[in-house]
């Protein structure tokens, strides 16, 4: 594994481009975080290192493109995976024509629908975690915060996070993008389920940050 090059210093992990048995691969290494206690740090890094490849594999079964995982090194909190040639949707979205944008958002929504239908929530649906390859397929990355669940609450949070990511990074097109993603999502999950998820998103957004209002609505559950 000589000549590995740092390609991204992320918040959670560093990504290195490397050559592994003749293949172009990405090494994802979750580095220790000095700010948190060692026991907590190890627990989080180990859990995510094991969990992420499992979800990536499951996502493929759901019909959503993800990089192939070649090796998981639990002790070093490192994953070796396929390098996906392409561009982050984050970089593409604001530059696209309206048609292209609507189409890619629709397809992203379809993929999220497939994940949810299969029982996976991604947990971090930002446009920097989506890569479009030259043939136009959108790969989903970074399942470290994902989960295996079919709960409405988890699905709602997943889409709420996507909506919020669009609002903070692609504010000029956020509404249009989210609408198209939901259209794609509904084609997979059906209109009834997606209505329920949309209702849930509404509830999540209304969830108060003020204790008095939450108490009135009986949403405080501390004994």
């Amino acid at each position, binding site marked *: 594994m000589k000549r590995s090059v740092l390609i991204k*210093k*992320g*918040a*959670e992990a560093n990504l290195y481009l490397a050559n592994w048995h003749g293949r172009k691969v990405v090494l994802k290494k979750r580095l220790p*975080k*000095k*700010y*948190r*206690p060692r*026991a*907590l740090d190890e*627990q*989080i890094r180990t859990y995510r290192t094991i969990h992420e490849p499992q979800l990536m594999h499951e996502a493929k079964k759901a019909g959503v493109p993800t990089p192939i995982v070649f090796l998981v090194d639990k002790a070093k909190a490192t994953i070796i995976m396929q390098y996906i040639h392409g561009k982050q949707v984050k970089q593409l979205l604001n530059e696209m024509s309206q048609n292209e944008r609507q189409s890619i958002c629709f397809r992203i929504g379809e993929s999220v629908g497939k994940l949810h239908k299969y029982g996976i929530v991604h*947990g*971090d*649906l*930002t446009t*920097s975690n989506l890569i479009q390859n030259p043939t136009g397929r959108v790969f989903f990355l970074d399942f470290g*915060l994902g989960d295996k669940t079919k709960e409405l609450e988890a699905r709602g*949070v997943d889409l709420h*996070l996507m909506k*919020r*990511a669009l*609002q*903070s*990074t692609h*504010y000029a097109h956020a509404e249009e993008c989210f609408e198209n993603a939901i259209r794609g999502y509904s084609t997979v999950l059906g209109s009834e389920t997606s209505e329920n998820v949309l209702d849930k998103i509404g509830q*999540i957004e209304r*969830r*108060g*940050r*003020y*204790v*008095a*209002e*939450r108490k009135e609505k009986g949403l405080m*559950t*501390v*004994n």
Partner: protein
Amino acid sequence: MSKRTAKERYCLGIESSADDFSVGISTFNGMTLANVIDAYVPEEGGIHPREAARHHAAVADKVLESALKESGIKPQGLSVIAFSQGPGLGPSLRTGATVARALSSYLKIPLVGVNHCVAHIEIGKLKTGTKNPLALYVSGGNTIVTAFDAGRYRVFGETLDIALGNCLDVFAREAHLHQKPGLPFGAVVERLAQSGKQLVRLPYTVKGMDVSLSGLLTAAVTALKKGECTIEDMCYSLQETAFSMVTEVTERALAHTGREEVLLTGGVAANKRLQSMITSVAEEHNARFEVVPTEFAIDNGAMIAWTGVLAYKHGIATEIERSQVRLRWRLEEVEIPWME
């Protein structure tokens, strides 16, 4: 105090969104001349909105008078009245708004409704000299990771349920700890946490750039009541877990935005352990770390006065007819013309 010219202009700001009633006075170029805070400390339980409002109404004239006295400015010398218009508790906000409207009408000077969250960020920038930071705003009512972009403060991360300060406060009350004026629950928990050694495993919930703290709070209270650990260990574990979560999302937002400054603001910013964690991620990403001074970290009138100055200078004034309080006024709804 530096010499003032006759031409200098002043804004008086009123903050009353939660448990503090405060009046601050700021010059138009950002000098704080007064910042008087009177805290309502409930005898038991959390903030009762009506009780808090009653407290605010009872102390308003006294606080106003001492702020004016401290600044050495006569009411007739003021140019603008600013007030915290939201978000916050309705009865509390309305009390401050009523005082502000009365002053503005009586003195025949403009009224400016200020967003409480914007004010926490603006006073942080003013007092630390940061220009365009990624801000972590943590208090009893809010937990927000934000940065300015294209006319507004964009919210990158926030809590999905309760605020960080609220999590610590409710835990402290459930653990039968006591707060005093000058020693709020957050400080009590911080002090106890310093003698904690054993890390108790608690739910760690990060979702994208958001955090969820209610499950953590419930687990911490439950474990303590079952007698599974000492109060010191639980304060330590609660702080370490909750602060690690907000630090993780701050780091995510920092990597995402690539900002060169990190500003810690809001009441919980006074916590030394949280400061050290945020310092660590700022260093990791070659960003400068700044924390707002404690006097301006908690809810205060000076921040409202200063934000009122910024808004007023950019042509923003609030007609009395449109000055009703906005309980759920979100940070990203506010246009920020002074940042361009």
